[in-house]
């Protein structure tokens, strides 16, 4: 049991490339913290620095009460699950799980009980004698988690553990990881580029961009009050619609028209960007909300819901999610969004206004 604390952690590679530019955050004891961001945002580097397989250029990482900057990975009381599992191909499942304990000089009987226990928990008991290559992707994933569990570490580190699995299995394993983490109650740091995984797993969500934290908080808070256009666009699928707007009286207007209502915003002179999610747009007129006049370009029915790709007079695309009263392609619709679902961002800095 331990907290993980990062203070102004930086990573500069030889050659001057700054992968992580001063990141600070805390993961409370027993919480699952997800680091999410596009590729190259430094999330994996950050995780590897916590694990100790990447050196820290400056800053401070604490696990529990210890500063672990210069401590070997094996001494940090962590366990890591890798994207490609990194199982030892020549060892049986049992040996894969037991290897770390043996290196630590754990007594044989203790190793045996711990491995059996973890295997039972992960339902991989029948495979203990097999080699990793005889297992399916999902089973290998379980073995990799088993190897982490038997160590009884203070912190679990997951490096995109589900990205090698197919979509269905990914969904199952996601739920299982969550359950496992809850029942073991071990502090975890989880890296992913998948916003769905991030939203569903996280107690604390850290959105990274270009080596810096864009926003940090509970997932739903990031969803409902994104601090920047980057976070707003990254969290939620399909992505939030962005429309450049100017002040018009006490309301807003888009260049070329098509937008009305949306009163009570303080818009800077140079204009701003209005953000609204596809799922918050409806065909029914909402009092005090924003109204959009759209020409329907494409209708994409995916079963339970239908995505309408509409166009403002300027040609700006707006996606709307509807369940019924689906309009025809080429027709015109007016959709509206409630005041609390409108987000306004500075057009220069991208920060929330």
């Amino acid at each position, binding site marked *: 049991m331990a907290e993980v604390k990062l203070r102004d952690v930086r990573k500069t590679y030889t050659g001057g490339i700054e992968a992580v530019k001063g990141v600070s955050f805390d993961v409370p004891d027993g919480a699952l913290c997800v680091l999410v961001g596009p590729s190259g945002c430094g999330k994996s580097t950050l995780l*590897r620095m916590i*694990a*100790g*397989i990447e050196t820290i250029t400056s800053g401070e990482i604490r696990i529990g009460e210890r500063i672990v900057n210069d401590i*070997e*990975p*094996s001494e940090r009381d*962590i*366990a*890591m699950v*890798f*994207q*490609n*599992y*990194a*199982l*030892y*191909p*020549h*060892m049986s499942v049992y040996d894969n799980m037991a*290897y*770390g304990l043996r*290196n*630590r000089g754990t007594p044989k009987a203790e190793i045996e009980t711990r491995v059996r226990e973890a295997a039972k928990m992960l339902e991989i008991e029948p495979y203990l004698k097999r080699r990793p*290559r005889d297992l399916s992707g999902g089973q290998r994933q379980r073995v990799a988690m088993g*190897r982490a569990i038997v160590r009884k570490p203070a912190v679990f580190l997951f490096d995109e553990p589900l990205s090698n699995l197919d979509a269905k299995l990914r969904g199952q394993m996601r739920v299982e990881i969550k359950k496992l983490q809850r029942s073991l109650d071990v502090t975890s740091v989880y890296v992913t580029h998948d916003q769905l995984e991030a939203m569903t797993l996280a107690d604390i969500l850290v959105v990274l961009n270009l080596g810096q934290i864009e926003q940090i908080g509970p997932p739903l808070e990031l969803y409902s009050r994104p601090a920047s256009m980057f976070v707003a666009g990254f969290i939620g699928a399909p992505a939030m619609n962005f429309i450049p707007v100017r002040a018009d009286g006490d309301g807003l207007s888009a260049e070329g028209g098509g937008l009305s209502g949306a009163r009570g915003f303080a818009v800077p002179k140079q204009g701003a960007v209005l953000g609204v999610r596809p799922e918050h747009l409806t065909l029914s007129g909402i009092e005090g909300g924003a109204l959009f006049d759209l020409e329907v370009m494409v209708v994409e029915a995916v079963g339970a819901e239908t995505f309408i790709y509409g166009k403002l007079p300027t040609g700006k695309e707006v996606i709307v999610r509807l369940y019924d009263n689906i309009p025809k392609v080429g027709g015109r619709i007016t959709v509206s969004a409630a005041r609390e679902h409108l987000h306004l961002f500075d057009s220069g800095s991208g920060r929330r206004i």
Partner: protein
Amino acid sequence: MVEQRTFWRGVIPHLVLWIGIAIVAFPVYLAFVASTHEPTIISNGQMPPWPGSQMLENYYRTIFIGTSGTTREPVGTMLLNSFIMAMVIACGKIAISIISAYAIVYFRFPLRMTAFWVIFVTLMLPVEVRIYPTYKIAADLNLLDTYAGLTLPLIASATATLLFRQFFMTVPDELVEASRIDGAGPFRFFKDTLLPLSRTNMAALFVILFIYGWNQYLWPLLITTRDEMQTIVIGIRKMIVTADAITEWQLVMATAMLAMLPPVAVVILMQKLFVRGLVETEK
């Protein structure tokens, strides 16, 4: 590509294969036949195409007594010498090159790339090219007529180092990282992970290097002067060239047959591992 199995499609490849086998095997068969006849039958040019009656006697003389003319040493000693030389060269090359490849791939040290290129360049300097300086050094170190002199200069191997380097570079970095997290230091990682993973590569290399060592001719010719240090490849040649006696062809042929056996045995015994080492990697 799915082919229809017709009669001719099956016959022609087999025919070609059988012709190939015949071309390779016929001289070997002739040598075997020659090793089972009396010397007079061979030298008058009338050797029948089937084995004669002298097989046991000829092979007994070859292995335990030796020819009466030249080499004096029985082939048994030569076989032992050749075997020791081939084994030490094969094992030594594998041991040295796997360690140097490990250093080059997994450790960052000053002049690492220089070391790599120096090893690489020695590919262009086989024994034949550096024969004089190598001989001089061996002679200065009193290595003439010793097993050390026979094997040491042939052990350093760029080819095997490069092969292991290529293999190590395909081992995923995550395995190293997982090992570090599992508390395995450099030595443990080498012993517990890298060596077992290289098993098939080592076997394939062993087959190639054993035959390389077994077939060495020039270097043993230079470094050995005493008869009891002779290798079988040198022995055969010395048996053929005789100044003042008739070449005992039946014994020469028996020696040739015996010289063939160990490499063939190595190939047959390690065939499975050999093929696996060349075609698949255990990852």
